[in-house]
Structures are given as C-alpha cells and as structure tokens.
C-alpha cells in the first residue's frame, strides 16, 4: 500500500477555529478538493475570517465546493486573510472563489536574484490599493548580497481587486 491509499479524505483537509472580537476565525489547513466538506464550519456561525496561511493545495472541484459553501453562508460577512500565492491565483482565475468576501491581507512572494532564497511578506490589502506601490525589490537578508525581486507581476497579482 502506498502513502496515497493511507490518506483518508478527512485527513487531507482540517481546520481550527477561534473567536476574534465578534468574528469566527477559521484556520484552513491542507488540501481542498472534492472530498472537502464545510458543513461543520457553517454551523459555527459568522461573520467569518478565513485564514488561508496553511492551505497547501486546492483543485477545480475544491473551488466548486468552496463557491457552493460561500453561497450557503448567505449574507454572513466573510473576510479572507493571509492568502498565499496559490489562493491569490485562484481568486484571479475564478472570481466567484472570492465572491463578496473582503481580502484583509495577502502574502507577497519575493525571490533573490543571487541566492534564489524565497521570502513571503504579509501585506494588508488596504495599503495596496495601487499595485504599483508594491515594492519591486527588497534587500536579501539570506545572502546579504542580492536583491529579492517580486515574484510575479503586481498588476496581474492584484487583479482580484478590480
């Protein structure tokens, strides 16, 4: 038996919840795919802040499950925070993945042109209304020689804000 066969559906996706002010914060972990179910999250009641920091993968059926889940939430306020590049990519490709949710923060990926070290900077989206304000490069604190460049095109990266 290989690793895949040991992987039960409910082991691929997990979440933890806690309360912040009047909102329920949901930390999403692992893989969202056709086996992911969000009923137990819905029952917690909103408004919700979904934290995507530890999400590792989402496939096309996972996107559909998530979009249907957002519909089921009805008028509950929804916020996204700490969105890694893989989540930003989905928001840009499939706008209904974002729906009416408000994005609080995203990770900006940088890579060093000298040592190829990678770094994620967390940015509040309210401070990034103009994509050109994204720093194109920052000093590399790994090799202290090179410049870390933004790993992508800022205009494209923030197209979900349109």
């Amino acid at each position: 038996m290989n690793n895949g066969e040991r992987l039960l559906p409910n082991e691929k996706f997990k979440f933890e919840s806690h309360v912040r002010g009047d909102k329920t914060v949901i930390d999403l972990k692992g893989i969202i795919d056709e086996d992911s179910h969000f009923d137990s999250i819905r029952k917690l009641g909103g408004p919700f802040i979904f934290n995507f920091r530890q999400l590792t993968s989402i496939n096309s059926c996972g996107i559909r499950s998530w979009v249907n889940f957002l519909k089921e939430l009805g008028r509950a306020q929804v916020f996204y925070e700490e969105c890694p590049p893989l989540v930003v990519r989905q928001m840009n490709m499939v706008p209904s993945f974002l729906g009416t949710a408000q994005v609080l923060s995203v990770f900006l990926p940088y890579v060093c042109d000298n040592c190829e070290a990678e770094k994620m900077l967390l940015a509040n989206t309210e401070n990034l209304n103009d994509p050109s304000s994204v720093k194109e490069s920052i000093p590399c604190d790994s090799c202290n020689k090179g410049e870390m460049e933004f790993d992508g095109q800022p205009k494209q990266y923030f197209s979900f804000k349109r």
Partner: protein
Amino acid sequence: MQLKAINVKPGDKDKLVTGLFSKKEAAEVIANGCRHIHSSTLGARDACALISREMLERSIQIPFPWELVKDSTLESLRTSRERHALIHSIASGKKITGRRDLKEKMTSVLEELVTNAIYHSYVERDDTPRYPRQKPAVLADSERVDVRYHIVDEGIYLSVSDRGGGLSFSSVSRAFARCYGKRSEAQIEDKEGGAGLGLYMVFETVTHLKFVTVPGVRTEICCWIADKRSFDPDHFSLNFFEWREK
C-alpha cells in the same frame, strides 16, 4: 463569443493561427473551433509554429522543442488515491526544492490532468463516465494512467496519457468558451462530475499545451511549464491533434 481581429471562422479546425495574443484572445479562437494557436513575437516564423504547420501539411508527428527531454521519469497509476502520493513525490524532488512558484504550478496542473484522465477518459458505450467522480476509482486491469515528467532549470515537462481516448476537442472548446467568456459562477459546471475548470486552469498556468488523441484508443496531454526565469507571457501555444489509427 465574438472573435476579435482574428480571421478564424467556426470550422477552421486545421487552420494554424499565429500572432501575439493574450490567453483570453487565444481561448476565443479555440472556442470557435481552431485547434492550433501559437503566440510569439516571431509570429509565423516561431519554431513551434513551423513544426505545427509541418505536422498539419504532412500529417506526421514531430516533437516540439520543449518535448525533447532526455531521461524523463515514467510513473503509472491505477487508483485515484495514488495521485496524491505521486504528486507529493514529484513535488518533493530535489530538482524542484526551493522553486515555490514552479512547484505550485506543477502540482495544480498534474492534479487536474491526472484527475481528468482517471475520471473522464474511461467511458461506457453510452459515453457515461465509467468511474463516478464522487467515489474513489480503481481502474480495470487493461486501464491505467501514465505520467511522464522531467524537471530542468528552464521549467518542467509533463505528460499524462490514458488508454481511454475519451477527450474530444469540443469539450476543450466548450470549457474555454464558458471559463473565459463568463467571469462569474457560470464559469463552474454544477453537474455531477468535474467542475469544468480543470483545462482552463491548466491552459492559464502552462506555456505550451499539446493534446494528442486517438478517439477510443488513447489520449496524451503534454505541457511545458516555464520557470520564472524563462517565462515570457507573450510566448505560448496550444495544439489539439486528432489522429486516426491506420
């Protein structure tokens, strides 16, 4: 969907379209039935476009430059659950360590292509899928999905093939028309089975995409994902070749 400034009529399936396009513009051409499109600053003189032209004119198969990989690794799988372990194993390889962007793109593309191959290529006589998407699939003895990959500094070559041959060009063109034409929930199919987003997500992610299908016999989808250092948003292609067994 309306065509913009590109002289392709519905039914021009073997016409080769070259020029400088966005992925959305290219998808409009494909949605109208054109099976071969190359975007490049070199236009019709682009090396890959010249190869497509040669293949269409002479009805022969010639590999594109990005397919010329030595020592690619072949893995075969026969269950839907094996795909996670396979993708994890490739993503954990030494040659992709520290290349976050490439790793994420490879994982996403492979997930969609392998899942499609398992659940959509093997069909019954009435064209209904043999393996329902809602359940784990274990392919029959005569069936399997082959994954071939090769990772180099410039990018990743991936090939996913099945022995079903159930993928039609119309399913590709319909998916593109829906996903690029609508920026709403209508992008997503709400039927049993897939979400209808997979091929759109693959095309958005890769640089070159090639389908080779022998209806009822086999389908191979291969692609090239350029590393960010060699990535050029103006340079991409899609080719859909349908061959008949002689």
